[in-house]
């Protein structure tokens, strides 16, 4: 029987890498990793594994690279069947894929618009971000998790970004638990899960990183 070797090119604070680490933890998979220095110099392995984007995360499975975080989570779910992360029924899977695509298109860039701006632009960015979360609140409905009764794929896709939310709240001057209370409750619920609690970085570290980025962009 061949041994599965999993190697993750990683960046601790990246919401995209956090997704992959949570998925691996949910499946109980052992892996080795390498923290990339995205500001100092990307490793040769990263440049070779992901020549088009040179971005993390990259998961190497027995040396073969899988790219793009949501794609990696799908791959992990398809390759290591238990426990299943995606819903069993095709319609449920199509809903999960739709909302994962929405999260990918909107959440990180929506948040970046907040930390990249000030004044009127900041107010606009804040309102747009709250609107994005309200749409996700609609998807959540009265369920405990985005996936339904159980924590699953869609929760994994979104929860990584939650470590950046306190920074957006501080810069934008708003509170998610006031604007989108169901999302606030969902975040607390997910954090009670071991794979999430052990993987999410401390919000102050994200704050420090964003502070550095704002200085680099000449915003503060």
């Amino acid at each position, binding site marked *: 029987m061949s041994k599965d070797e999993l190697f993750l090119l990683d960046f601790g604070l990246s919401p995209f890498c956090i997704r992959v680490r949570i998925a691996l933890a949910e499946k109980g998979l052992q892996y080795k990793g390498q923290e990339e220095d995205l500001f100092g110099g990307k490793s040769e392995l990263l440049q070779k594994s992901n020549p*088009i984007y040179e971005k993390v995360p990259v998961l190497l*499975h027995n040396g*073969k690279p*899988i*790219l*793009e975080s949501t*794609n*990696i989570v*799908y*791959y992990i*779910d*398809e*390759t290591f*069947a*238990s*426990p*299943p992360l995606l819903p*069993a*029924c*095709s*319609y449920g*899977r*199509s809903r999960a*894929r*739709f909302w994962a*695509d*929405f999260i990918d298109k909107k959440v990180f860039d929506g948040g970046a618009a907040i930390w990249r701006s000030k004044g009127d632009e900041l107010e606009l960015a804040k309102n747009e971000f709250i609107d994005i979360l309200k*749409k996700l609140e609609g998807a959540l409905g009265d369920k405990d998790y985005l996936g339904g009764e159980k924590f699953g794929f869609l929760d994994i896709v979104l929860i990584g970004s939650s470590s950046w939310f306190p920074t957006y709240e501080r810069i934008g001057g708003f509170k998610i638990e006031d604007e989108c209370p169901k999302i606030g409750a969902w975040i607390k619920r997910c954090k009670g899960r071991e794979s999430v609690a052990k993987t999410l970085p401390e919000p102050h570290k994200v704050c420090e990183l964003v502070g550095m980025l704002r200085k680099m962009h000449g915003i503060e």
Partner: protein
Amino acid sequence: MDAAKSFQSPESLFVVHSESARMATETVKVLGCWPSPYVIRARIALNIKSVEYEYQEEDLLGGNKSDLLLKSNPVYKKVPVLLHADRPICESLVIVQYVDEVWASGPAILPSDPYDRAIARFWAIYMDDKWYPRVKEGFFSEGEASKIAFEEADKGLLLLEEAFTKCSKGQKFFGGERIGYLDIALGSHLAWIRVIEKASNVSLIDEAKTPNLYKWAHDFSADVAVKDVLPSTDKLYEFAKLLISVMKGSTPEK
């Protein structure tokens, strides 16, 4: 062999297959707009599986989106929407994957091996997020900006030519002997690519630069699942002139 089998856990396998058998008989409707490459994707997928469906053309140019469209896709209010037993599925590649899973007894659209599936999904993301926006920018911008955008699109096509060689393994399509996910993802753009080549006087899928993609484009366009839904260059060219005039708020030149 169903694509489902290679990645479904045993406990969900029974649910998927009995559900699929039941769902495959329910009514199917597509809300679309004939020039849209994204709508074309959904229709090709249904054609591959020989699914009969009702097609509703949306008047997007006239700004008259139907109530059904607005209700079915409240997040984006865009086509395509697949309505299966009145349940909406939105986003073209989500629709293609859904069709592949539900009509699992038809020819497979995605590969069965998880790594090949990951490669297919990656290149489809690349086409939509990185490559096609350069083509559109080349078309809609002017002068130096247009030139640079088309040069970047050319470089991207060289990557896609390489991807084609690896995925096709010497056969006609990205999917092998039959069209698959990546053929649909890229091929759905062919009509617009040809219009843009004509209007901007550029050669994107070029026989000398990308010989495999050049041949592939002909084979794809002629495929029985494709030929009736991929618009002719002439028809789309006339539409493009109308679209630009609407965007600029002026009458089109002949």
